[in-house]
């Protein structure tokens, strides 16, 4: 029981993850010409 509680607690507080950098794609995407 205590083990299960400890497990639930650990689920509530996941270890902090480093923010993933956004993927950058320099490939052409099929969009129109947006303004400016």
């Amino acid at each position, binding site marked *: 029981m205590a083990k299960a509680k400890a497990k639930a607690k650990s689920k509530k507080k996941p270890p902090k993850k480093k923010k993933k950098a956004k993927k950058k794609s*320099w490939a052409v995407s099929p*969009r*129109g010409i*947006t303004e400016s």
Partner: protein
Amino acid sequence: MMMSFILGARCNARCGHCAKAYGPTRPEELSPRLILRLMDEAAQIDDGEPLAFAITGGEPFVQFEALLEVVAHGAALGARVHCVTNAYWATTAETATGKLSALRSRGLWGLSVSVSRFHQQFVPLRRVRTALQAAAALGISTTLKGAVVNADLEPGGELAGWKEQLDADEIRIFPVLPYLRPGEALPEQAYYREPGLPQEPCPEEILTVDFNGAARSCCSPGHADEFLTVGDAATTPLAQIERRFRLAGRQRILREQGPIAFARAAIAAGLGERLRPAYAGPCDLCLHIRADDELRHIAEQLSAAADSMIPDNHSS
């Protein structure tokens, strides 16, 4: 709800790929008072999307006081506000920081900076870099929007230079479409294209209000006519325009199936030879259909049929 406002037709540049022929002598402006009213109305519409406003042009920084006013109003409503610019004003780091600090203090969330071989005739690349760097230092989310022709994609071409010199949180590279400033021309082989009909739906449907109040379901300046117009925002309540934007047959077809639905109907009607063998993407196909009287007629018929299927038809 997300909306885009074309603050005005004035621009410091006169880019060859600008289908709407914006430039330094264009006087048209969308009244800030109207923008503020539309922002207020947009804040009352719950379409399940977060409230967001994009301010574009023309070049919105040539109307800087108006830009400050509308950014402040949108941000005060809790919206994410971002603006699109060519960065002509980023002459030095200090100037760029000054302009962007003023916008940041009024709640600007994001800055998109446009770049292309056409822009570069009017705005040196270092100003684009200066603007992006200043924005990033102020915590403003940055996007680089690069418009390309085939030559730009070659080794040592423009794109390689941008990769080397520019950085942003998001990079968006999109093709120049064959709808240029009147009087400008490029050889056909200059345009980026992929064989066949593009299968994708409309990639960025957004309710855009032009400087004359015309509301359209498109982010592209090539659509400056009735084809995607959903109302006159100067005279019509936004809720009514938004309903048409959401439910009208043409918009639903483009959103759910893409312009290929119109192309398929054209092929079935024996007009397949009017289509090109290759397109840059769905926007290119959509613009082509709009510009060809016979293809457009088919699209209008299909749209009207879809309109009539809307319960409690408010599509006109």
